[in-house]
């Protein structure tokens, strides 16, 4: 266990150690830095345009996850409760999305986004993730809803509630636990994605954090102290959220996939 902790901790130590070191200091990367400085962070923040990228990442993640949770919860209601053929066919079709790798859809969709003039904007990404995450999120919601008794919805219906009303006042409150799971897993997936923004935002000034950091690392490839400062900056927001919400996040990863 101590050895494992060292294997996990060592790269983090080197990361912070080099990020704090002036580029002129060329001693071994494993020796503690003698004259730590925050200059690299200031430079990386400015040169890498990390502030704007951070804002874009927050916006894309918040908007696309909100959309995908809303439409998937709504879709799960008939898919879990109605046994008519259209419902079964729709469910199978959506589950097909769990196996299709997005590399297949990403290239033709690139053309559509270009024709719609959305290429290079965060709207392309929000739309993309909102659709891409539908199968997984619907799968979570439908599985969870199927495990719940229909008694409350039946009672609401007998009392004269419309399906929309039953969804809003009866089903939705019961979906809270699985919503936390879906929120965590979707947010981490969207926040960390690199391939999609690399495709859809390349050449534009609007970047998400992973693409901005990768671009910066490519441009300042010989200036590792600067790159490391950029890496630290990009990791800090995730780690703050992670340590603040560790219980829900870990339980989301551990439990959600059991459906």
């Amino acid at each position, binding site marked *: 266990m101590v050895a494992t902790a060292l294997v996990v901790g*060592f790269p983090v130590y080197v990361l912070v150690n080099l990020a704090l070191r002036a580029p002129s200091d060329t001693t071994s990367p494993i020796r503690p830095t003698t004259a730590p400085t925050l200059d690299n962070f200031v430079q990386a923040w400015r040169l890498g345009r990390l502030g704007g990228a951070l804002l874009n990442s927050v916006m894309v993640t918040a908007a696309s996850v909100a959309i995908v949770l809303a439409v998937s919860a709504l879709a799960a209601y008939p898919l879990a409760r109605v046994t008519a053929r259209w419902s079964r066919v729709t469910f199978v079709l959506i589950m097909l999305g769990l196996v299709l790798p997005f590399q297949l859809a990403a290239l033709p969709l690139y053309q559509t986004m270009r024709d719609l003039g959305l290429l290079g904007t965060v709207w392309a990404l929000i739309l993309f993730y909102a659709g891409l995450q539908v199968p997984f999120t619907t799968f979570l919601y439908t599985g969870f809803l199927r495990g719940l008794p229909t008694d409350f919805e039946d009672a609401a219906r007998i009392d004269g509630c419309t399906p929309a009303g039953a*969804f809003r006042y009866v089903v939705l409150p019961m979906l809270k636990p699985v919503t936390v799971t879906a929120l965590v897993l979707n947010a981490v997936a969207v926040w960390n994605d690199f391939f999609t923004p690399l495709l859809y935002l390349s050449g534009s000034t609007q970047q998400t954090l992973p693409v901005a950091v990768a671009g910066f690392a490519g441009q300042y490839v010989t200036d590792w102290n600067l790159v490391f400062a950029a890496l630290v900056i990009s990791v800090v927001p995730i780690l703050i959220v992670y340590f603040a919400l560790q219980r829900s996040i870990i339980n989301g990863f551990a439990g959600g996939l059991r459906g």
Partner: protein
Amino acid sequence: MGNVTHGLKRYNGAVSVAIDSRRHAGRRGPSWWFAAPAMALFAFVVLVPSARGLHYAFTDWDGLDPHFSTVGLANFAQVGHDPAAVQAIRHTLLIAVAVTAIQNGIGLLLALGVNSAIRSRNVLRVFLFAPAVVTPIVTAYLWRNLLGPDGAVNSLLGAVGLRSWQQDWLGDPGLALWSVVAVIVWQFAGYSMVIFLAGLQSVPAEVQEAATMDGAGPVRRFWSVTRPLLAPAFTINLMLSIIGGIKLFDQVYALTGGGPGHATDTLSTLIYKDAFTLGEFGYSVALAVVLTAIVAVVSTGQYALLARNERAAS
């Protein structure tokens, strides 16, 4: 007599009212439009483009020119004759299998260790899982430096007297692929661990105690008691790591860019290069179809196998 008929009529009337209202209730169940927004988004982003991708795979489309012609199976034949593609398929499968085996092996050992560490269990869990939430491209750039010729890994080896073990971890064609595997395992072993831990917590302590009383040693206890109860955790972990391994892009892009030469190219990196640096969209989409086929075959095969094991274990 008249009274009986009247009574019967009233009864029938009441029943038909009840049947009516039941039918009515059935008709008022959630209707299809609840699923319409999700279906529309899914169709726009996944279904329609995938179907179009499948079509383009049989054309010579370059991604720009609206005029292109159908070339039949030529793109797929080219995949078979393109050494870079054949190599990429091999790397993709090799990475998927290696990552799956090593990551889950380490993840399971960590889970067993952390589970028995009663006092520090939660701290260790939080700490060891942390790399899994960090952006893969970021950890990959970190490791690209650490594994460089003058990087921290070689410095550390030098410092502990293992100078002869120093390597150009990412520049040596025979070694680079394994370095990529190591970086992925470093980041995601904690993820496997967390899923195994959740499975371990479903193993009742009484069962373990009973097995101990019956004279079962730790290895026997693990094999006969714990392992069968971990079957669902194995299913999830193996599915996640093998499919993640097959689709791998970020780490290769940042660590080696597919190099040296094509030594670490995977299907995903090759798809990206062919489409966006060479402009061979048709061919690139054909590669994506190959990738889709591999994912479909592996995931259905694995699912069937694991579902059988799960049934056998329970």
